[in-house]
């Protein structure tokens, strides 16, 4: 291990350049977490079976555990840390926080990156389209329902509507 020659490269992550030396067999997940200290991106299997490591590369949500870091050089990488604009959370993040779409919060970064990518190309996703877009992200806490509702609420607010969560989703029927 120790004799593997590292490569030096500059990554564009969340709009900022990061110059990093890393072994060429390292995945994007490892380099983000261990070389750049961007630990917001999680891992649950490292085999592409859970979606916890989802990041966006050139706007497309992908599994960072199955991507080589060297292949991300020169591309636009976006992680959960890059969602908020300054100190202001995005509507999607606000809705996740307010509705309880994050319970333990471990799958949340991956879910957010997949949902954010959906909303960037579909302003009014149906419930089914949301389910399909999140069909690669496992969550063991929420039963997904608060996640779906948060994406719907965020989409409405991003369309400029003064949307509120339904009474049933907060207080039950």
């Amino acid at each position, binding site marked *: *291990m*120790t004799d593997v020659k590292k490569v030096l490269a500059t990554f564009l992550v969340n709009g900022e350049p990061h110059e990093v030396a890393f072994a060429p067999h390292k995945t994007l997940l490892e380099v983000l*977490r*261990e070389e750049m*200290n*961007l*630990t*917001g*991106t*999680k*891992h*649950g*299997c*490292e*085999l592409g*079976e*859970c979606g*916890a490591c989802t990041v966006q590369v050139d706007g497309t949500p992908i599994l960072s555990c199955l991507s080589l870091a060297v292949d991300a050089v020169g591309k636009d990488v976006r*992680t*959960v*840390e890059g*969602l*908020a604009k300054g100190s202001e*959370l995005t509507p999607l*993040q606000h809705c*996740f*926080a*307010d*509705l*309880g*779409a*994050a*319970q*333990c*919060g*471990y799958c*949340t*970064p991956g879910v957010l990156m997949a949902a954010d990518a959906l909303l960037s190309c579909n302003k009014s996703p149906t419930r089914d389209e949301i*389910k*399909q877009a*999140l*069909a690669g*992200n*496992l*969550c*063991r*806490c*929420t*039963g*997904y*329902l*608060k*996640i779906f509702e948060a994406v719907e609420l965020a989409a409405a607010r991003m369309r400029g509507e003064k949307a509120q*969560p339904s009474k*049933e*989703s*907060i*207080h*039950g*029927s």
Partner: protein
Amino acid sequence: MVLDDPSARSPQAKSDAPWHHDAKKEDLKHIGKPIRKVDARSKVSGLTKFADDLSMPRMLHMKLLRSTRAHAEIVSIDTAKAAALPGVKGVLTGKDMPIPFGILPVSQDEHALCQDLVRFVGDPVVAIAATEEEAAWDACRLVDVQYRERRTIGGVHEAADHPEPRLHDYGVRGNIHRLENLEFGDLAAGFQKAEHVREDTFFFEGNTHLPMEQHATLAHFDKDGKLTVWSSTQTPHYLHRALARVLAPLPAHHIRVVAIQNGGGFGGKSDPFNHEICAAKMSMLTGRPVKIALTREEVFWCHRGRHPVLMRSKVGVTKTGRITALDFHSYLDGGAYGSYGTASTFYTGALQTVTYAVENYHFRGARFFTNKAPCGPKRGHGTPQPRFALEVQLDKIACDLGLDPARIRLDNLAPRDSLTANFLRIGSMGLGTCIEKVVAGSRWKERRGKKERTADGRIRGLGLACSSYLSGAGLPIYWNGLPHSGVQLKLDRSGLVTAFCGSTDIGQGSDSVLGWIIGEVLGIDPLGIKVVTSDTDLTPVDLGSYSSRVTVMTGNAAMQAAERARDILAKGVAEKLGVPANRLVFADEKVFDAEDPKKGMTFQEAVVCTEAKFGTIGTVGSYTPPATAAKFRGGGVGPSPSYSYSAAVVEVEVDPETGVYRVPHVWMAHDIGRALNAAVAMGQIEGSVYMGLGEAMMEEMAYRDRSHKGHRVFVHKIPSLLEYKSPSALEMPTVTTYVVEDPDKNGPFGAKEVGQGPLLPMMPAVANAIFDAVGVRVDEIPCSFEKVFAALQAKDKRYGPSLGADGVPTVDFGDSLKIKTPWQGGDGTAWNEPKREKKAAK
């Protein structure tokens, strides 16, 4: 420092209702409102740190070499080549940590690394730390372990038939870990009274928690001789105790355990684990910080999930379906170690009586040691398996008698404010309301039994089931007379209130519970309260996040601490304003005179003037559950301050040609006493529906049992996130949730548990719905597609439990402990129990 002035206690605290269960909804400012959780924004920003997100300078990475044999003696271990690999800094074997540990005092049967025996594929044998994780892994491959294989014990039948070789040299005998035999009332008389008797066998396969976060631990033994362990644990206090035991003579007060945010627990992180102790020992050996982050496969080796349970249940009822007698046997496949298994065994017999009045009850439970990853507590701990059996059996009885399955349950409801046959004290009881809600919502009466066809040729069916669960165990895991939960409050002259508590937020929102309750009592914004939790150096003990105990126990401790703080502040303010203390109102960040609201001050000013008068302000609160009514041996498992109730109707659509089915809609009602936060309670209920659906349809801890050239392979079949199936976003049904609030006098503002109970009815409701749709019974969980298909093909339209095809294991349970029921004039003791020696003092 002013601490706990008893004379200053509020009048309410002395009343019969110290926890304000009778508070009117409209009088509550924060309780019940959908306030976001205290840590919600960090979690959606990637800022929440989990154990594997931590790193320290000079940190080493540790890997465990695990057994490749299911059951074998360790003949020799040669680590020389591994130790010589560049980058390797430390190697540990079993002889470095000879002291056993375990979560329960009665089963201290685990070692941080195996001593002379390995008991399942995955049992840890050697720990190696290196500068990089890859080097540690490579080094593990260089270790030479020689094994002498022993006969594998693969399940309950094999364990019963083969007392030798024993996995452990303790337990009842052979490979029987526990035997319980409790008889309440007169069973023979009960069956004599019965007009209809059914006897059925059920099997519930084991399944696992599958938290998204793999367990991880960082340990640092510093140069001052102090050890700090950051770990994904639900029970920092018990980990602290286990570390102190194994690492002796290191004093307990030199050990600090920080339960860092858990990425999901569900019971899977509530034992002290071998990897946690190894990391600590490795840091002591190397003098450097040591981290271990388990792989997904290793999480399956940690397991402690749902026990596989084979059950034999005989129920007697009257013509109208009233239960006169219940004779219940459970056979638990415990896996390789004790874990919580003693409690799990009792739990398979404890809560049947809490939903329905059972006049006479005989429970026999046996737990066996087998060469599998150890079983323990998973959401619902020991109660989902018997609940499945009971709820399916009731459905069958309703069918036999031509009764509505909803009616038979309503007619059997255990009464509120009563003692059950096994001396569990029921307080508030909203199950009737729960049943009525889901029956109305699902249009049960109109739609049941109609066998409607969907557009794609599937047949619809509805199934109903109920459940109950504890609001925390009434007794601690180790015998002591100490509080179960403690809270300290620090009031700063800036107006900041900081709450210190040992409770552990595993995503359920327990940190937020502290804020809501304290905020309500002190009239301040819950999101402005600082919460410091789960750090054994800083926070008073809370026993941990298990058995749904935190809302009630931590909540009550927080309420006591907050009321004491309010009383001290009231004294200070009263003097300053010249108003009687009992006229002061704490609300909207202010303290003011109820009769003249203009007369008052801000909360911060109140803290300042009180501090000026009394000095630094701090208060404490603690909680100990009420004494249990059960005095017989084994009566310690089951009592709780209160019980939650759930009822579910599940709709299925079954493909009659293949047995494939889907669940489009679930109606779930959950009596939680009072919702401390509506949105968070909803999330817990929906999460339970999800996890129950997974157990009903697909989740199982399947094992490969093969032989080749005299070598038996016995290993978990599918230890991965892909092949251990859990429902995705696409399987999740629409859920109509009813939050039923029947406040209980033992909970903070009347709250009971939320989040375990609603898992339980899912499995029987799915099975009952399949019967309603296509007329077949699957008496086994998971109720997977192929079993529905097999039942459709079978002559008797039934898929009998695969494990019970040859009957239940032959076990001599010995004489039962005989306990008179409350209605027989019983006092909670067993009349034939030999006098027990007083061990309490030890």
